């Protein structure tokens, strides 16, 4: 094992031996000190050292000065050279508190109705540093409230200029929609020209929301729409995406990866007054039927290849802004919840003698881009009605559950409603992890082309959190070349390859959020500052832990291939005919637009 070089440092008078390449912040954590931080994020990915909250006094014989511990290398303050790190010197405590009080003086004071109440890192650190009321009152930077985009809301009155969102958008998606503008006190974080998200090529993926420490970036809530629909007497059907169950327990105090929330989630939904509680996994199975058939068609009829999945609206937005020339490559399949919505308003409605306009479909998604997706006119198959009427995030569902006073841990485990759309397979469940769609599709495509089930059922080369995964599978004499990418920055090289006519692949899965939907913009926040019971490296492990829940569910299910879902088989037999039939095309497939301007 490689020997990590160590160094002795002096923290508050005690000597600690720590790895030499650490920062003072990390080393202090090892020594048992959790120095208050605010803008710091994920091993200093964006370390601007700008909030000046993590200040410590580093004292030498010539006196002490304050430094940001998140960037200060321990190598520069060895104990044997007389350096001492004082976390609680009077100067450090005062300055830390003043940094927070100054931020508060330029911040919205409406904490109670703020959607981040209870999960706000600024509020948390205010308490930790002992911020006093009404310090440094004065003028505030002019603010902007942007509610125009369906997925996201930007409120600069709550921004602390930490810069995490700027880096995240560049890091995850490679496009860098957000940036600092102006200088000094007037500085804001905004899309170019302080435009709305809806006026720039924002993917609405919500990755920025996931990192925002305050309520400056939040999702556009749709809970009120559900309340209104119920009040108006609509028949309200709810469906839940696979990734939701992998994380929802976290909203109720459980550790990441600890609990498969499926049963309790369904029980909660039953108690929230929905007329039907379905699983989007059914839609996922349906998507596989259609998409696998589409792939087989493209291969056998020598049509455009590679085929790229289309269930990630963040990716679809990216494609329509920047790669419209690749529209022929994108599968025409709607995403699972849209398919399910269309089926609910046609097949389900008919069998229950319900008028489609009386049905209100709610999707619980780990995603914010789906709030945009649901409003696309191309996703309105039945009488021009939207396939899905409202999309709420995992977080919004938790809000509804808490609002109803339901105690999560006392819920029994219940099953989804078995009513035409109740069955689902393990192939559908794994959609929530990167590589899941690909694996599910391979399980079915294999069967379609060979008439046999794949053995083993799992297709592990496409699992895991790497940026791009590449695999091959032999099917009926063809070597299918497959690629999986998550995060648009990682996917871009694959797209450029297709554009240049050099792509070797048959089928590519692209998910907008790095790691797949388990890391979606609508998932519970993973904020190390607010999760003291998780380890300090939680940001490195949470996606895998959530994905592991899904793979475990898949292993335990009796049905693991989409084509073996009896409700799916019945749907085709009684209603759609076969995958990619005319009925399927009308209900379950969509089109893309080539005229969206990037800027």
């Amino acid at each position, binding site marked *: 094992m490689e020997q990590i070089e160590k160094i002795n440092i002096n923290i508050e008078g005690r000597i600690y031996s720590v790895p030499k390449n650490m920062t003072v912040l990390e080393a202090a954590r090892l020594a048992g000190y959790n120095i208050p931080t605010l803008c710091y994020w994920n091993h200093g990915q964006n*370390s*601007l*050292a*700008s*909030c*000046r909250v993590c*200040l410590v006094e580093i004292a030498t014989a010539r006196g002490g*000065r*304050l*430094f*940001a511990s998140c*960037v*200060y*290398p321990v190598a*520069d303050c060895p104990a044997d050279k007389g350096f001492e790190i004082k976390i609680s010197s009077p*100067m450090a405590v*005062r*300055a*830390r508190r*003043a*940094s927070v009080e*100054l*931020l508060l*003086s*330029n911040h919205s004071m409406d904490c109670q109705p703020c959607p981040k109440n209870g999960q706000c890192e600024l509020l948390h650190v205010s308490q930790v540093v002992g911020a006093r009321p009404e310090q*440094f009152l*004065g*003028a505030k930077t002019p603010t902007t409230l942007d509610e125009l985009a369906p997925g996201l809301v930007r409120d600069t009155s709550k921004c*602390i*200029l930490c810069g995490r969102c700027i880096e995240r958008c560049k890091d995850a998606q490679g496009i860098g929609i957000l940036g*600092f503008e*102006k*200088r*000094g*006190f*007037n*500085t804001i974080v905004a899309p170019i020209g302080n435009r709305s998200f809806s006026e720039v090529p924002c993917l609405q993926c919500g990755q920025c929301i996931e990192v925002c420490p305050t309520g400056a970036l939040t999702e556009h809530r749709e809970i009120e729409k559900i309340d209104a629909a119920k009040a108006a007497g609509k028949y309200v059907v709810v469906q839940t995406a696979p990734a939701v169950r992998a994380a929802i327990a976290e909203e109720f105090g459980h550790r990441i990866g600890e609990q498969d929330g499926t049963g309790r989630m369904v029980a909660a939904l039953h108690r929230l007054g929905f007329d039907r509680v379905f699983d989007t996994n059914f839609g996922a199975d349906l998507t596989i039927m259609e998409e696998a058939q589409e792939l087989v068609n493209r291969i056998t009829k020598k049509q455009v290849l590679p085929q790229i999945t289309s269930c990630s609206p963040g990716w679809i937005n990216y494609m329509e802004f920047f790669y419209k020339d690749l529209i022929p490559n994108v599968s025409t399949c709607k995403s699972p919840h849209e398919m399910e919505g269309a089926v609910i308003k046609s097949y389900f409605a008919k069998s229950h003698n319900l008028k489609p306009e009386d049905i209100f479909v709610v999707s619980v998604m780990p995603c914010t881009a789906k709030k945009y997706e649901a409003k696309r006119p191309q996703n309105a198959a039945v009488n021009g009605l939207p396939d899905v009427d409202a999309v709420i995030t995992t977080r919004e569902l938790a809000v509804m559950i808490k609002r109803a006073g339901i105690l999560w841990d006392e819920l029994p485990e219940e099953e989804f409603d078995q009513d035409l759309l109740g069955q689902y397979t393990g192939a559908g469940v794994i959609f929530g992890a990167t590589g899941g769609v690909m694996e599910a599709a391979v399980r079915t495509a294999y069967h379609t082309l060979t008439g046999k089930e794949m053995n083993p059922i799992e297709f592990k080369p496409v699992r895991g959190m790497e940026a791009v995964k590449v695999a091959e599978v032999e099917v009926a004499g063809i070597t299918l070349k497959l690629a999986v990418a998550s995060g648009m920055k990682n996917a871009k090289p694959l797209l450029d390859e297709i554009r240049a006519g050099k792509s070797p692949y048959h089928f590519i899965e692209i998910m907008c959020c790095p790691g797949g939907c388990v890391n979606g913009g609508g998932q519970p926040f993973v904020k190390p500052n607010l999760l003291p019971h998780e380890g300090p490296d939680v940001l490195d492990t949470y996606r895998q832990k959530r994905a592991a829940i899904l793979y475990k569910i898949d292993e335990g299910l009796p049905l693991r291939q989409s084509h073996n879902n009896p409700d799916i088989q019945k749907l085709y037999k009684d209603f759609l005919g076969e995958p990619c039939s005319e009925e399927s095309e009308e209900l379950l497939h969509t089109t893309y637009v080539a005229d969206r301007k990037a800027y």
Partner: protein
Amino acid sequence: MERITSPETLQKRIDECTSVFQAKIKGEGGKRAVVVCGGTGCIANDSVAIEEELVRLIKEKGLEDRISVNHVGCFGFCSQGPFVKIFPEDTLYRGVKVKDVAEIVEKDLIGGQVCENLLYVDPVTHEKVARQDDITFYKKQIRIALHGCSLINPDKLEESLGYDGFKALKKALTTMTPQEVIDEVLASGIRGRGGGGFPTGRKWQFAANVKADQKYIVCNGDEGDPGAFMDRSILEGNPFEVIEGMMLAGYAFGASEGYFYVRAEYPIAVERLQNAIKDMEAAGLLGDNILGTDFSFRAHLRLGAGAFVCGEETALLNSIEGKRGMPRPRPPFPAIKGLWGKPTCVNNVETLSQIPFIIREGASAFNSIGTEGSKGTKVFALGGKINNVGLVEVPMGTTLRQLIYEIGGGIPGGKKFKAIQTGGPSGGCLTEKDLDTPIDYDTLVARGSMMGSGGAIVMDEDNCAVDVAHFYMSFICDESCGKCSPCRIGTKRLYEMLTLVTEGKGTEQTLKDMEELANVIKAGSLCALGQTAANPILSTMHNFPEEYIAHVTEKKCPAHVCKNLMSYQIIKDKCVGCTLCARNCPVSCISASDVPARPMVPGKPALPGKFAHEIDQSKCIKCGSCMAGCRFGAIVKQ
């Protein structure tokens, strides 16, 4: 010019150019030479036209072979410009106008007679002084950084070669190892002239110790301190010297690429630097294998774009990298990880301009000047309420009293000295009690100020200490990059509190809050801009507490500056009713009262229909036009 490819060729060229240059300034063969100041200040006063007129007249008289005309860099004595100097007599003409050129040509250049009316008059002895070096402003100066300024034509490489240019480079490249160069600079004791005061040799040593495939030397020409124009003058007067200093730095710690970062507000300096680089490239003094050695060096020029914070070295590096000029946390220091992540030394223009002297003459020539802790000379830009506004280069250890009174000529108009602000917006003010302080990095800090880049603004009794602090705070707020909360929000809050005080709305609690906040901003900010932002406030509060108290308890501004606490008043029995003030007033708030005007000529009766005027205080915007134009002293500030 033929390419210089070896030390021998360089020596030959130096010898040739030196004898030409010496011949010129010594007037060999009966020839005369005239130089015109081409610094920004004098150019604003038409010195280009003066040069053109000289050339024209000399040509007209067919004397081009006997009289050479050149423009040179800043003479430094800017309040007396434009300057024209004659060689070999060293006669210095001041305040020259285009219409004076004919006289200079006829009387002096041709006739050999001094033009008395264009000479400097000593304000104490009232005597005319002909030779530049006899003028008190110049007597105490030792020009190391300003070496060559006002002597050589900065657009001519041959004049630099003729006046010590590149001797140091030759010496270093042919007889010294890089470590020996660092050792010499260390021994000289030179500390960063940009304000930080960090020992230059130590900075180079850090960078030399790092192994890297590429290192950079960056010259900080983003002289942003208002009132500081040392670097501008050096670049305008002898850009070759700075480039040479940069090359010596590159040789010393292993940088083969150098970047100049110069403010865009200095177009003349930029142009001269650009031309100097081009000429040196053509001559083979920049590029591959300089003087036939293994040392290759390229110089590049990048411009600022109007951001004071880019004078901070890490913000400067970010700016070169095409980003917003926001500072980086240190460590890691630029010497370890700087421009594009490579080891980089950022040195000030003035620092680099003194390096050739150190190498050429030796460390002891430098460290024999100055004090224990601060060696060598420093260029100061004296400005504000002082008779001799301009640039001076004096040994460290010169006292403030000497600077202000002996060299600066004291306060104009017989007004009382109040304070001298050193270090710009990062510094503090020094008062009467500090006047005998020897100027030195550490003594100034001990007295609550700092050396800064060398800007020194003198204030008199008509300046309000609170108002000056308010001015500096407004500057800092404007120029704060906005990255860290103590500076971004803290300075704004400090400015708001100060505004309350200047408007008469502050209380004693305000003063207490200001001091507390100032200390927090000082302790918590990311970079030196924030860390020193509160210095003007702390310094003025410390030195002029009674002024602050007057503003908050009596709601009075003793210096009659703060607008809300002062007013312009017309003294009716001095007013002759000429109505000039009323006509000048931009808001037309001055009108006739019913008091008859005073006679314009004493003894004679007042003209009928003339009334003393009065100002409508409710409309007055306190612009001061009225008082500026009144020739009868009838308008005062109260």
